[in-house]
């Protein structure tokens, strides 16, 4: 493989990785703040992709506009889902395990409804920029993926700024780092959790809108995505945003190489292979904290 070919593969991997980073950031935020393992995250991403697809296909609204609409809509959806379903299992000593079962149920319900109403055929929104590409030097860059990666980066930077500079953001970070301490300094953790769940869901909404024109999707597609996303979240260290982003970029590039060298069907194995290795050598993940006993 020439250096130029390798660079080309790396560029495509990075573009895809940007969207994976956005997809996994919501998942890791939910786990970090609330210890919720949201198996329905992928299903909600697919739901947002349908939203964006139909807005494009039926109304002619550009996916980037849909993305801006999906953010508040999915934020609200997340806040409502959190307030309706989670208080009844709060305080359970098996809270995290229960969230796995509950969100597993959500995933089936969302998938079932989508299959019923939207059928199982593959969909992709096809705005003009999704069908063209630009060439920089000898490199070929699909415009749609470049725009999607750019939007992902923008959303992730906004998330970072929110966490780093706002009052509520401080509360969210504090709750992620030490829930007890957060309560002690007066953070209303229930409110912060609702906001964080809403933001996690908004990130799923944004990611879904971007996915709608870069990857073909159908209702059951989310099982494949959630498997990849969970491996990214565990790899980065459960609840570590930095870890999820770095893991997503690194593994997307690695899987592009595996896809090119070994064969496309082997690309997903990169994520799970990396997961096995990390669990053997560093069980807490790249940026995770060792579990306290």
């Amino acid at each position, binding site marked *: 493989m020439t250096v130029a070919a390798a660079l080309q593969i790396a560029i495509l991997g990075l573009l895809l990785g940007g969207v994976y980073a956005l997809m996994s950031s919501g998942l890791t935020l939910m786990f970090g703040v609330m210890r919720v393992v949201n198996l329905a995250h992928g299903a909600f991403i697919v739901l947002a992709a349908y939203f964006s697809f139909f807005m494009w296909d039926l109304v002619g609204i550009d996916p980037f506009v849909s993305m801006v609409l999906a953010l508040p809509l999915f934020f609200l959806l997340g806040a409502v889902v959190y307030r309706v379903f989670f208080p009844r299992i709060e305080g359970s000593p098996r809270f995290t395990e229960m969230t796995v079962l509950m969100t597993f149920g959500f995933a089936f319900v969302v998938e079932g409804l989508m299959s019923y109403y939207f059928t199982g055929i593959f969909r992709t929104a096809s705005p003009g920029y999704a069908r063209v590409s630009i060439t920089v030097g000898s490199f070929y860059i699909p415009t749609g993926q470049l725009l999607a990666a750019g939007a992902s980066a923008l959303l992730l930077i906004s998330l970072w700024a929110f966490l780093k500079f706002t009052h509520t953001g401080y509360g969210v970070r504090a709750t992620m*780092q*030490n829930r007890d301490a957060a309560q*002690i300094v007066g953070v209303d953790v229930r409110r912060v959790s609702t906001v964080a769940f809403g933001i996690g869901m908004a990130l799923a909404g944004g990611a879904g809108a971007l996915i709608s024109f870069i990857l073909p999707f159908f209702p059951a597609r989310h099982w494949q995505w959630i498997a990849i996303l969970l491996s990214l979240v565990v790899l980065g260290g459960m609840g570590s945003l930095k870890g999820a982003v770095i893991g997503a970029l690194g593994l997307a590039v690695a899987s592009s190489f595996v896809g090119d060298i070994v064969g496309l069907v082997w690309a997903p194995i990169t994520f799970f292979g990396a997961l096995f290795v990390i669990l053997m050598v560093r069980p807490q993940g790249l940026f995770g904290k060792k579990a306290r006993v």
Partner: protein
Amino acid sequence: MALLEVEGVRAGYGSGPDILTDVSLEVDSGRSYCIIGPNGAGKSTLLKTIAGLLRPRGGRITFDGVEIGGRRPDRVLEAGVCFVPQDRTIFPEMTVRENLVMGGYLLRDRKRVEARIDDLFDRFPRLAERSSQLAQTMSGGEQQMLVMARALMIEPRLIMIDEPSLGLAPQISNQIFEIIRGLTELGMTVLLIEQNVKKGLEIADWAFVLDLGTKRFEGSANLILDDPRIRDLYLGKLAAASGEDQT
């Protein structure tokens, strides 16, 4: 009227048994108190219940005439009751300064938060030196100093401190005790749990003896230190218990 009044409080965890069966005590403004009692007596549980981290199953807790029992922790804090738990609950990946900013979370006024941080940096020069260091990289004694400074951010009217010397070398614990003594000298109301009973009683004006979830005895701290009955009944047991703690 007492600043804090606890009347017949019952509390426990989850669906478990009552840890506090019936606790009543009064805390006056401007004085310092030490709660002593064997392991499992319910000392920490009492402070957690007052702080709002645990909902009382019965009884009343009033602070400055207002009922605070069963209120959310942030509401209790707003009333002026601050809690420093025993496991040094810092924010590990925040800097020392950010930890203090979090201490002022309820103030919501940046200028006031900055002024409080400057004030506390004057009082704790060691923390000022480590201002931009991540809290998790500090020693146990410094972390204890940090959680106490963080509690002082909102200028509480009552500060409750649970086992501040736990796991610290004797020299370091002495520094921590000096800080607590400094608070009492400033006229702050302090409610302290201390495994090192002798030290705790030296700092405090008044002591409550807790055992099996209820208050067995109370009295002037000096008196308890010198009372042979109390010493035999509780301090002997305590000395043995605190010996276990340190191993």
